[in-house]
């Protein structure tokens, strides 16, 4: 699977799509595959603050739980409500319907390009 070139990435396997002053955040296919089938996603509430590379939530599979690290500092403007009922979308469509949160930000921190992330996960 290819990591989309229009996204930015973190070493903790989150992706970011920048749209104006809003960042859409998710986890990569690589992370989703490594976790196994996701059964629960714990996300912050709208209005919560996120901080660059600080924990903003958790994803649980049957076998494990992993923390989510925010790729960007800002304020949560929307969370993906569909994940409460269909957490498996994070596995089936991590770069699309499996997105996690939208964050309003004021500056873009240092993030990896898709080429750099490809190298990190050995693709």
């Amino acid at each position, binding site marked *: 699977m290819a990591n989309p070139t229009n996204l930015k990435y973190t070493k903790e396997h989150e992706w970011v799509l920048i749209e104006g002053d809003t960042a859409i955040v998710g986890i990569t296919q690589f992370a989703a595959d490594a976790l*196994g089938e996701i059964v629960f996603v714990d996300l912050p509430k709208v209005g919560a603050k996120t901080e660059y590379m600080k924990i903003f939530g958790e994803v649980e599979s049957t*076998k494990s739980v992993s923390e989510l690290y925010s790729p960007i500092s800002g304020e949560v403007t929307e969370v993906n409500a569909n994940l409460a009922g269909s957490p498996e979308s994070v596995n089936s469509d991590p770069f699309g319907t499996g997105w996690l949160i939208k964050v309003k930000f004021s500056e873009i921190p240092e993030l990896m390009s898709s080429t750099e992330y490809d190298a990190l996960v050995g693709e």
Partner: protein
Amino acid sequence: MKQTVLYPEHVALGASFTDFGGWDMPVRYGSDLAEHHAVRNSAGLFDISHMAEIRVTGAQAAAFLDYALVNPSSEIAISKAKYSLICNPDGGVIDDLIVYRLGEEEFLIVANAGNRHNVVVALKQREANFDNLVFTDESDDWALIALQGPKSEAILQPLTEVALYEVRYYSITAGVVGGIDVLIGRTGYTGEDGFEIFTPADKAREMWQTLLTAGGTDLTACGLASRDTLRLEAGMPLYGQELDLEHTPYEAGLGKVVRVDREADFVGKSALTALSQQEPERKLISLQGEGKRAARHGYEIFNLGSDSPIGEVTSGALSPTLGYPVAMAYLKTSANIEVGTVVEADIRGTRTPFTIISAPFYKRKK
């Protein structure tokens, strides 16, 4: 890491692997939830060739096993099986086992992969006083393939002339499956009906393929992730989580497996007899949660509003079948741990209510 003879089959099926007791085992092939549901609703196929098989034969085989294990193998009828424990002299559990009686003087013991060495050593030590005993670790000669789920019999029957309906739960028979000589045990670790097929290692890949082909869309290759959630729902202990040298059979709720009421001596008898007469300090308890957050291995349990833990979780997951979190935990018997009591699990800093219920979480409809 060790690989079973079926490893190339798992690679071909695209499995993800995990280290389990020193073995590189398939954890899932695709979705572990789909694999779990396949076993509950149709059938699943597991490679459990990492498990150890030990054969004991000879005129004193039954007497030897009566001495070496906590319940008497001499009472097992030929072609039947029994769940047992091998304990140390203090009553600590070295392993949990299934003992199959193949003949008057012939038994096959299946032990956990990670305990193979310890079980073999313990049995060797215990055979000193017995003559005419042949004791063979056949683990490398056998592949063990588990076919589990309500459609197991329908899938297996066309491949064998053995009348499977006559092979009752916890029985074993020799037979031919797909042209291969095997032993067919009606046992398992999923809470469903099914078979464990002891296959000569050099025929294992052929058997695996024969079964998958025969099962078609009714049969799903399943990894250890689903095996763990299936056994947890069924309330079955896993050595290393619920069972170990530090916990007694009475704490683990396996007191009825231990037969202290017999005259003959067996290893652990005096310690276990004393333990059987007192209330254990802690007990393995079943917990049912709400919502979706699982209490996992090592998480602490509290009585409501208390800051002193009363125990900790040994195994826990969001139950795929039931949809709510389930867990097993060792809890102090000095605390309030009656069925119906609500306790709290500390889930990574958040106190989360769980209700103590009677085991198991899931029981199949007969």
